[in-house]
């Protein structure tokens, strides 16, 4: 497999496809991706995913691929299909059409709301799921996770006594227990205060640096720009853009006209992070009928 880290935009419809990069066109803007390394081959691929709820199509032919250690953000407004996409990748839901290259057991999944038992301690939660995952050495794995999450001091505390941020770290740690090469995070920083959010992202970035492919959904554009190497934009179940944060900024600027102008050679990041960009992004979505 020689396909570099990228999403496959052939499922994009309704005018968005022209703005989305196709395989091999990723510019590499934003945080450095591992696209040129020997590990650049896709560790996860999804093809032509379609999901219908009655007559409503929640996903319309979405395809993507991700390589080792890559951080991929899935963004879009509420109801765009982000959670549906991640649920299908995680094996929680079955697509009506399309396929995913990996079995659910090979993919770690962290739901949006912490899926932990509030009456059990941090260590007991980790131990329970480690045993259910049938890891070789549950005790050692739990120790490692406590180390990784920096929660050793809170190991004996019941989850119900933890802050939202720490609870989310345990939630993510449980998703990592199986040591799968791919980790799916559904809005991992939702409902967290800025400080807690920062701690969660530090943790997630360290996982990616260690080689785990992380695909996360968010409706926070700044969060996508800041942490992702690649961004997928979903709207009404359609994949309307795929590319680096910088490429998204250019697309939005071109598509909207009202987006803030930028001099040649200027860094993309600060512009994407600005409130003006959010407005431009919304206008960009509207222009495409979403």
């Amino acid at each position, binding site marked *: 497999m020689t396909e570099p880290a990228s999403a496959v935009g052939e499922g994009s419809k309704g005018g968005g496809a022209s703005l989305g990069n196709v395989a091999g066109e990723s510019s590499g803007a934003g945080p450095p991706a591992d696209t040129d390394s020997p590990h650049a081959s896709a560790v996860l691929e999804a093809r032509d995913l379609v999901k219908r709820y009655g007559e409503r199509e929640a996903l319309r032919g979405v395809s993507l691929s991700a390589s080792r250690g890559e951080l991929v953000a899935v963004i879009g407004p509420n109801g765009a299909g982000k959670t549906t996409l991640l649920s299908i990748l*995680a*094996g*929680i*839901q079955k697509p009506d059409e399309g396929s995913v290259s990996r079995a*659910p*057991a090979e993919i770690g*999944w962290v*739901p949006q*709301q*912490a*899926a*932990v*038992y*509030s*009456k*059990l301690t941090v260590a*007991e939660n980790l131990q*329970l*799921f480690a*045993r*259910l*995952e049938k890891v070789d050495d549950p005790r050692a794995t739990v120790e490692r996770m406590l180390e990784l999450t920096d929660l050793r001091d809170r190991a004996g505390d*019941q989850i119900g006594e933890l802050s939202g941020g720490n609870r989310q770290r345990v939630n993510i740690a*449980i998703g990592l227990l199986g040591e799968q090469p791919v980790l799916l995070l559904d809005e991992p920083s939702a409902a967290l205060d800025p400080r807690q959010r920062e701690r969660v992202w530090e943790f997630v970035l360290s996982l990616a640096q260690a080689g785990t492919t992380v695909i996360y959904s968010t409706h926070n554009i700044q969060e996508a720009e800041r942490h992702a190497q690649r961004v997928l934009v979903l709207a009404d179940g359609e994949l309307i853009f795929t590319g680096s944060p910088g490429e998204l900024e250019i697309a939005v600027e071109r598509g909207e006209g009202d987006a803030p102008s930028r001099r040649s050679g200027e860094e993309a990041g600060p512009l994407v992070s600005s409130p003006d960009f959010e407005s431009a992004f919304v206008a960009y979505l509207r222009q495409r009928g979403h």
Partner: protein
Amino acid sequence: MRWLLLKDLRILRRSPLLVGLLVLYPVVIATLIGFALSRGPDKPQVAFANLVPESATEIELGGETIDVTRQAGPLFRAIDPVRVDTREEAIAKVEDGEVLGALVIPEDTTRKLQTGLEPAEIEVFYNADDPVKSSYVRDTIKAQVQDANSALTKRLAKAAVEYLDLIGTGGQFEIFGRELDVLGLERAEQILREAAVELPPRSDAREEVERVIAFARLARDNLDLSDEVLSSVGSPISVKQTQLDGGATPLSSFAVAIAVTVSLMFITLLLAAGALALEREENAFLRLVRGLVSRTGLLLEKAGLAAVCSTAVCLLMLAALGLFVDLRWERFPLWVAGVTAGALAFAAMGLAVGALTKEVRAASLLCVMLSLPLTFLALVPSGSVSPFLFDVVRVVSAVFPFKPTLDALDAALNDTGGIAGPLLHLLALFVAFGTASRLALRRFAG
């Protein structure tokens, strides 16, 4: 599955208030229901005015002395008598609401009974403030007076038979302290036969005497039948009781079966539904069924947890009740079979409820809302509603585990019939509700 079970037990251990309520609430409710059903109404207070002078409480019937006041013994076992001295006092107590009724035995009661010329009349006054109790008082007094009537009638009939016997066969009879020799029909016939022989054949006098002899024989023969006739007058209708259905369960033992069934229902339903709903409330359900445990495995684990816990509690409850009620310990294996089968069926029903709900509170509320009407439906006695409605009640009761569990426990505790039928019924309900919960989990829990 073992780890999930340990996890659930650990969560229960850390929720002492919840567990306490889960066990205590149904046990208290069940015990109250059981003993409310096993006891009749409290003895109603009834004012009792016996105006018969102490010197005139006895009557003579057929040479036998009867103390009329002793006839009130059975009545006093059914009511709580408040003795008063006058009729007015008795009525005042009823009017003041101090007692529910009053029974007045007039002064001339024994005299009327002795002469037999007119019936003795007793007076009963009611207070209808409490319809249930006043009805109970009315019925109790009426029944007891009926019994007394019957007893006196029997004695009167017996005396009458003795008089008739005297007329038939003759003999000694004592009246007003004097001994009389009564000739009797038998001896009269014999005397007449002897006299007839002395008369000339075919004479008018002999024919007249022969007619009297024939009458005496006829009268004596018919008097021989009077015993049976008079005894049937004493009890024209007798009651022969035959039990057609159900066992001979003492009320207290049946109350135990009800109490245990109610406890089993509440504990198992709440535990099974709550444990399953908790997985969704904690958002762990999808994480678990992503490959860590199958949905069916999860349901079996919750059913096992609920059934084991509730079976243990109910067997302990039975052991405790055995200290107060006479239970047949040699049938203990059948108790275990009945309780376990009921627990499994209730657990499956609880899982179906838990699969429909996302929160423990909602699951608990739904369980209570379902279980209470089902309990009352299962206890509706035949004949209290129309036949069609009773058939509907029976069908509804058969679709839920309460009635078959009660039948199984009644059979196990009181040997009221075969236990195999209720056990198979419960097994079928376990499978049916288990399937329903599996489908509900697929439909409602992603």
